[in-house]
């Protein structure tokens, strides 16, 4: 009975972490689906967002769940600006250049944070950080539960935005056929930047949800970014449903393999899934043709 309880609590933990992974992957998959590029600065942007939450809490005394309302628009604006005024002009429209420019950005962000904050690991103290609710025999962490629910709400909002609004329509049009979209009067550069901004905004929300239970240091983004790439590849590049399901799967795999094989080998499991999916099913579980 005890064994089953441990298994179930690992499963529940995996699902809750997986939902945040899914949220992180949403931004990546959205940018891929529309711009057809991989944003290498995604992990570093998440780190920056986590530090922003840290600063908001330590300097301004702002609770992470309140900071989300300031940081989300801020990171949307940052993402918009960086794509429109740095990535787009610097890459001259070539995919391999975009890859290199976003790599350059990630090096800059990560090391600027390292220079500013040193490599110390920090965390924030919130009164609800360790509170739990009892469900049956399981004790679920409240902040993780909040993150789980919020991730699904954000995914739903993002889906509504894409499905129901004019901007969403324009984003989908550009994703399908950018020349055609441009001919029908859509400002493609603007839509690209909006998409990038949405990706960064997702990261800001994820950072606010993560900080009550996670630690932050300048290299933390690396831990998340390959996980996010794995989820995106597993779920199918550009697929929102795929990112959600992929995120949950990876969260559970990580938690269970951590339980049975120990921490460091659990990490390898994720990379091996990543390599195997890339080699044998690069379209992922939900992806259409690559």
């Amino acid at each position: 009975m005890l064994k089953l309880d441990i298994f179930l609590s690992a499963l529940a933990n995996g699902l809750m972490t997986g939902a945040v992974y899914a949220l992180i992957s949403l931004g990546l998959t959205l940018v891929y689906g529309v711009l057809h590029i991989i944003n290498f600065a995604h992990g570093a942007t998440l780190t920056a967002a986590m530090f922003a939450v840290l600063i908001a809490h330590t300097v301004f005394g702002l609770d992470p769940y309140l900071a989300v309302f300031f940081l989300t628009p801020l990171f949307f604006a940052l993402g918009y600006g960086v794509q429109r005024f740095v990535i787009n002009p610097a890459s001259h429209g070539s995919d391999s250049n975009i890859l290199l420019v976003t790599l350059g950005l990630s090096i800059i962000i990560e090391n600027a944070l390292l220079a500013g904050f040193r490599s110390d690991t920090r965390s924030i103290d919130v009164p609800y950080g360790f509170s739990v609710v009892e469900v049956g025999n399981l004790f679920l962490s409240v902040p993780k539960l909040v993150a789980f629910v919020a991730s699904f709400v954000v995914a739903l909002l993002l889906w509504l935005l894409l499905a129901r609004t004019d901007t969403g329509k324009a984003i989908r049009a550009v994703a399908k056929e950018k020349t055609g979209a441009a001919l029908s009067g859509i400002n493609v550069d603007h839509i690209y930047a909006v998409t990038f901004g949405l990706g960064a905004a997702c990261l800001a929300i994820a950072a606010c949800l993560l900080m009550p239970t996670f630690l932050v240091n300048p290299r933390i983004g690396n831990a998340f970014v390959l996980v996010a790439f794995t989820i995106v590849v597993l779920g199918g590049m550009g697929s929102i449903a795929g990112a959600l399901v992929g995120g949950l799967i990876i969260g559970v795999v990580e938690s269970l393999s951590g339980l049975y094989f120990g921490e460091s080998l659990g990490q390898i499991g994720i990379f091996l899934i990543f390599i195997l999916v890339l080699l044998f099913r690069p379209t992922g579980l939900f992806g259409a043709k690559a």
Partner: protein
Amino acid sequence: MSRQPYLPIALVVAGLALLPLGLTSNTVLNFLAFAMIITLAAQGWNILGGYGGQFSFGHAVFFGTGAYAMALLQVRFGINPWLALPLAMALGAGVGFAIGYLSFRARLRGSYFALVTLAFAEVFRISANAWGFTGGAAGVLVPLRIGAEHMQFADKRLAYWLALAFVAATLALTLALSRSRFGAHLVAVRENEEAARALGVDALAVKLKAITLSGAITASAGCLYTQKFLYLDANLAYGPWISVEALLAPIIGGLGTVFGPLVGAVVLLGLGEVTKTTFANLTGGAIPGVDLVVFGVLLILCVAYAPRGVLGLAEGWLGRLKGTRP
């Protein structure tokens, strides 16, 4: 120029070989030897990425394999370093072939190829960190045994000249490659793989040859690194720093050129040193990461304004001076 294609290489190498005669400071010699090691790693990247157009984000996998093989062959099997070196390079070539076979057969290219190489490097890093045979997180220490027969030199100039000899060999090899049929095929695959294939180029074979050669050369950089520092751990050997430097040097120097990696490595490391000391003097203490911030800015600037790197810029200026714009 066309009569004596190897003359510029001979001149540059001779110039570099004479440097330690004038400069005897240990700092300068260490800097030069390290620059040669980075040049080697970058030259390996350049063959696959510059000539072949396949951007790897995980060349640490080859560097680390070379470095670990060099150390472990000596420490665990008692093999002489002069024999361990070719063995380690062969292992690097083998890893290159294996990764190339898996990923090129699966038709991975562009960002997918970059991602899969990054993931391979991470798998190797985590494994080396966890496995007892590689020394785990504590790393491996190669015992200090000064003497040419142990490839450990009391005179720092000798270590530098050895690294320079490797650089000279790879410069000549790269030039020979760029003038060969294989080199032409490789460039054709970079420019347009479908068109190259339609003309009868076996793209898979060409890319496999390139990544195998690339793996061997970058592994040799790892070997020299081991002999220079006599200590390794997973983050030094398989860490992202070397993947980034192996990629930055050719891009900053001049992608797909013979001298690009050399110029890029010297510019990069020189600028890194200047930045570090300037900031340390300004703030009264070393600041980690500032040099890498400069590297990142430089990468973006190069992509935006100097797609042919420093060498491309220099060519442009020379052309303008002569009044004939290229």
